[in-house]
């Protein structure tokens, strides 16, 4: 088990555990946004949204850039890709096990009945 990537994944998963943060990430997947535009759809105060943004920044999922007075936010793909890889491993594990189940039952049914 690769320990350091496990900690990165932990941060990613904690960040993803919140539905507001998930929607923020989905928004940013469509392109960079400034903070006020990003916060607009949410029925919560700007400080509350900022709190979520800080969690995402600490997890390395988003990056903040200053363009003059505006802060623009950008999705960082690398941690998401790691999370996607992790999900894929489990998916592959189960899919492959079910492949084996399929083959096994095919063989079982092909045997002459006693």
């Amino acid at each position, binding site marked *: *088990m*690769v320990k350091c*990537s*496990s900690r990165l*994944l*932990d941060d990613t*998963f*904690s960040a*993803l*555990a*919140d*539905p507001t943060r*998930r929607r923020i*990430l*989905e928004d940013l*997947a*469509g*392109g960079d946004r400034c903070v006020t535009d990003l916060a607009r759809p949410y029925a919560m105060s700007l400080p509350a949204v900022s709190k979520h943004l800080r969690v995402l920044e600490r997890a390395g999922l988003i990056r903040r850039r200053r363009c003059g007075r505006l802060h623009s936010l950008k*999705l960082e*793909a690398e941690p*998401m*890709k790691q*999370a*996607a*890889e*992790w*999900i894929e*491993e*489990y*998916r*592959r*594990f*189960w*899919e*492959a*096990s*079910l*492949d*084996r*189940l*399929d*083959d*096994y*039952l*095919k063989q*079982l*049914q092909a045997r002459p009945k006693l």
Partner: protein
Amino acid sequence: MKTLDNAAPFPKGFKLNVTRVIKAPVDLVFRAWTEPEQLRQWFSPDEVECRNLTADIKTGGAFRIHMVSKKGDHIAIGKYLEIIPNKRLQFSWSWENYAMPDSIVTIELEDLGSSTRLTLRHEGLPDQEDAEQHTEGWTEIVEKCVKRFEEQQLTT
């Protein structure tokens, strides 16, 4: 095929769904999952050897599956939570070598006559928001984000 190389603690609120139509009647499928002698024969993917499997198939019974891949030993352990013949099998799932919270695997079987629709759901323990809002699993969002990000990369 890479499997189980980065076994990390199972995150809360995580849901993974796999669905398959298996060309066998539901009772055969159910028995393949609930008879240890049968489980030993098919469980675990090709590049992973199933070295030892013990299972006490009853509610509250424990199982232990010792798998070996190129990267080492992976021992899955858990307890059976619910067993409804030909319909549903649910068990907790975690790894013996790693200290981590349990996850839950639920297998639902749908009788399609000579075939069976099998739906396997693997989920982390629900987090607070999950329980309150019944939010969908976030696997789709991760996959969506990565996909859209990669599409963006192609157009810039």
